């Protein structure tokens, strides 16, 4: 590799702008503009090599311009995704193609056709994020290595050209140089600078670690993105829904049959006037008494399977714990979490009928039908018996006008009974649905009179296991750490140097010049030394010539 040797003797990598050690500008740019201190003039790969394809790709992704462009494109895409609801937020049993057009007209149709209904999961959105990730890695590597090198090798003694091209720079002529330098050194140390001295020159530095802040936060971001990507790896991430009825014990999906859950009770509460804090009355009045939800809760018992899984056999269960699952208080066990997310109130469980003599109204016995597990025959004794010929849990007439069932959930149960009695040995057929009874073969003597409906509540729970969470947590923590490191501290340097019998003071910071100037004021207060001038400001004022400020 080509190298450049500076007159101070230090050997710099090819591409260095000013000497790593003494700061002498290696390519004099003619006039005395201020030095660009951003990366300490270090040789960045992206700025130095532009020949091969790899070089060019590297240069492309390490450009902040490209990075910002990617960020802005992602931003605009994200805005578009909020114009209409994403598909996951539209009602579940509609056809999205129709839904968008129905709800939002031609704009909705276009939105759907462009695939914006699933924008955040689209390949190009994910690609954008991935490109930001690549850009983050490359741009960080491109800068952090040379920056580290340059900061590590910087010499105390700096070339005069380096000093006079700093933004804060001043020259003092004083008689007792040694005393002034000694005083400054003491004051600098008091302001918690790390001071290095060489041949009577000073380099005071503090907050260098803040220079690593951006790189630390970028690393955190990359870890976070990797974590987010890992969730598509099988096994890292489980997301299941389970519905469990009061009194029911069910296998928890996603646990490979290892865990079972029993729901003891589902509780739904609302805020009511008189029961809750009085200050809520006005709000309750506005929305309506009993309209604001207070609690959704499922009291559950968690069981673990003991012994091996035998197909068909009833699992042997061991109780692990009881827990009330509430919103914001999921049940956690063995990396799983169970959340309260949904519910159905008053789902029919058993329906009871009384076999009744239509004429006398006499009751001859009660039949209680478990709507999930009906029996074929119900024997009432004394020669009375009811057979269940057909059962439609969710009754409807199909296209041909025949009775059928929409689902296995007893939303609208209907039955065909055959009633036997001592005086009706052949039996009588009756079709019974909610609010209606049909007697297809003529008038019956007996009927099945509805007695009662027993209901229970159903809890909708979400089962999660997410092995990526800790990665995201680590990434997020590193990101925050790096942000604070880079933003709440700054890297300040003050050079104090004797040049031709004068004392030159120059200062640089990567942020917060106001703070640095304040610090310099305190440092030089009462010393008789000249306060370094802000040459950027001077230049601006000179360029301005008294008229209004132009575009910056």
């Amino acid at each position, binding site marked *: 590799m080509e190298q450049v040797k500076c007159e101070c003797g230090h050997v710099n990598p090819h591409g260095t702008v000013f000497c790593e050690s003494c700061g002498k500008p290696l390519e004099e740019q003619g006039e005395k503009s201020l030095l660009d201190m951003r990366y300490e003039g270090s040789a960045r790969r992206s700025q130095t090599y532009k020949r091969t394809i790899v070089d060019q790709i590297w240069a492309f992704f390490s450009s902040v311009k490209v990075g910002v462009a990617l960020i802005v494109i992602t931003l605009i895409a994200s805005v578009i995704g909020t114009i209409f609801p994403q598909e996951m937020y539209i009602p579940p049993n509609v056809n999205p193609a129709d839904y968008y057009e129905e709800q939002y007209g031609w704009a909705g149709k276009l939105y759907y056709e462009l695939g914006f209904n699933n924008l955040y999961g689209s390949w190009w959105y994910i690609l954008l994020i991935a490109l930001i990730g690549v850009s983050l890695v490359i741009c960080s590597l491109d800068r952090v290595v040379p920056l580290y090198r340059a900061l590590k090798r910087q010499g105390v003694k700096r070339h005069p050209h380096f000093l006079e091209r700093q933004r804060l720079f001043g020259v003092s002529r004083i008689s007792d140089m040694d005393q002034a330098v000694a005083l400054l050194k003491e004051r600098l140390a008091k302001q918690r600078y790390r001071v290095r001295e060489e041949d009577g020159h000073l380099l005071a530095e503090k907050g260098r670690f803040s220079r690593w802040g951006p790189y630390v936060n970028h690393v955190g971001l990359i870890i976070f993105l990797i974590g987010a990507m890992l969730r598509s790896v099988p096994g890292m991430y489980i997301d299941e829904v389970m519905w469990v009825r009061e009194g029911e014990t069910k296998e928890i999906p996603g646990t490979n049959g290892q865990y079972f859950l029993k729901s003891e009770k589902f509780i739904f509460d609302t805020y009511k006037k008189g029961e809750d804090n009085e200050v809520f009355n006005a709000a309750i009045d506005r929305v309506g008494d009993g309209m604001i939800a207070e609690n959704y809760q499922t009291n559950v018992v968690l069981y673990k399977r003991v012994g091996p899984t035998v197909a068909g056999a009833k699992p042997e269960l061991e109780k692990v714990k009881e827990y009330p699952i509430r919103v914001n208080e999921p049940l956690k066990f063995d990396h799983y979490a169970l*959340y309260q997310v949904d519910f159905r109130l008053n789902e029919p469980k058993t329906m009871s009928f009384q076999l009744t003599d239509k004429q006398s109204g006499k009751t001859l016995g009660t039949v209680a039908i478990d709507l999930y597990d009906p029996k074929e025959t119900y024997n009432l004794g004394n020669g009375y018996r009811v057979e269940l010929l057909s059962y439609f849990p969710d009754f409807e007439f199909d296209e041909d006008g025949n009775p059928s069932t929409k689902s296995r959930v007893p939303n609208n149960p209907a039955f065909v009974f055959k009633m036997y009695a001592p005086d009706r040995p052949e039996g009588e057929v009756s079709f019974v649905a909610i609010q209606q009874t049909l007697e297809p073969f003529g008038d019956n003597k007996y009927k099945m009179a509805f007695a009662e409906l027993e209901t229970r509540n159903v809890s909708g729970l979400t089962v999660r296991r997410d092995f990526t969470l800790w990665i995201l947590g680590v990434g997020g923590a590193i990101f925050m750490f790096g942000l604070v490191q880079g933003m709440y501290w700054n890297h300040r340097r003050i050079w104090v140097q004797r040049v031709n019998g004068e004392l030159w003071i120059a200062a640089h910071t990567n942020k917060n010049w106001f703070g640095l100037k304040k610090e310099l004021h305190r440092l030089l207060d009462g010393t008789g030394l000249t306060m370094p001038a802000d040459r950027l400001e001077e230049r601006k004022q000179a360029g301005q010539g008294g008229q209004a400020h132009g575009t910056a």
Partner: protein
Amino acid sequence: MVQLSSTLLYISFVLYLIGTFLFGGAIRDKRKEQQGKDRWSQFGIAVTIIGFLAQVGYFVTRWIAAGHAPVSNLFEFTTFFGMMLVGAFIIVYFIYRLSVLGLFALPIALLIIAYASMFPREISPLIPALQSDWLHIHVTTAAAGEAILAISFVAGLIYLIRVVDQSKPSKRTFWLEVVMFGLVTTLGFVIVSTAFGLSGYEAKFTWIDKNNQSSEVEYHMPALVGPHKGELAKESAGRLDPLVEMPAIINAKKLNTVIWSLMAGAVLYIALRLVLRKRIAAALQPLAKNVNLDLADEIGYRAVAIGFPVFTLGALIFAMIWAQIAWTRFWGWDPKEVWALITWLFYAAFLHLRLSKGWHGEKSAWLAVIGFAIIMFNLVAVNLVIAGLHSYAGT
């Protein structure tokens, strides 16, 4: 307790108003020698601090009364945001001692608090999803971050008012007037809401919603645009019949409020222009004429540098932790979440542009204005227009 709480809020509002005038006096006072050392500014900041303490009093008493931190509905959250804005201003004031910052920051805080007060102010009980300590942690940190970022808007605005050449119309004067119009319209909203509120205007409509269900809606402003197939209810006979009817997917009541606010804003704006005989920004220019531009730029950047991490922590990290607990997933692409991400991406772009392309000064000031617009959009429009999980039941 509730009474005390609202009195304290009222007191703080009045004090901020007085503070504004005191800072105004500081700008006018020709005798002042050093920045922030004059009497006017000293009184100004003292009154502001007392006002801030009064508002903290409002916050604490309301918390005690409700049993939960008052950040659970739009009124409470927005008021809190205003309070944080004043808090951030106080801190920045003690670093930079720039009186003109108070002259602009306080009116903006006043506008925000007044705006907040137009929403239902009663203390509401917490629905299950909000019953979590993370409500307090997430919302307060996010609001604090947004408030600090808003200071960069204040500094940017001052920068632009000073720097934009008002001698002839240009794109810059136009956009600056757009910003002014936005502020005036907020005031317009407050004025019309208060006026119709005081007059007790009510008009009930029955209308057909997008699921073909008949429902009712009550307007508190005369209906310029009416709901889908809306009919005035009997008890509202004689109220204004809507001039235009909206399709079912548009919330006509909110749109009606927006139209009224825009009209009031336009009237106010035109009146101001007629009285001032120049652009509003031009009229404000003298107030900013002594501002050190580099200092204003520095403050704007500092505010972003300090606010960005706070915002990240509150609006993204704490938000994700809570979402994981309450909604089973840390991220769900809900509009409010997406807009927090958009805000975050925007300020990330801001920081990178400043670092690498050297977007300082005026460009940076414009960016700060846009950033604030995004924050306000998230606060106002996303809550009221794009309904999602987060939408506080705004009316």
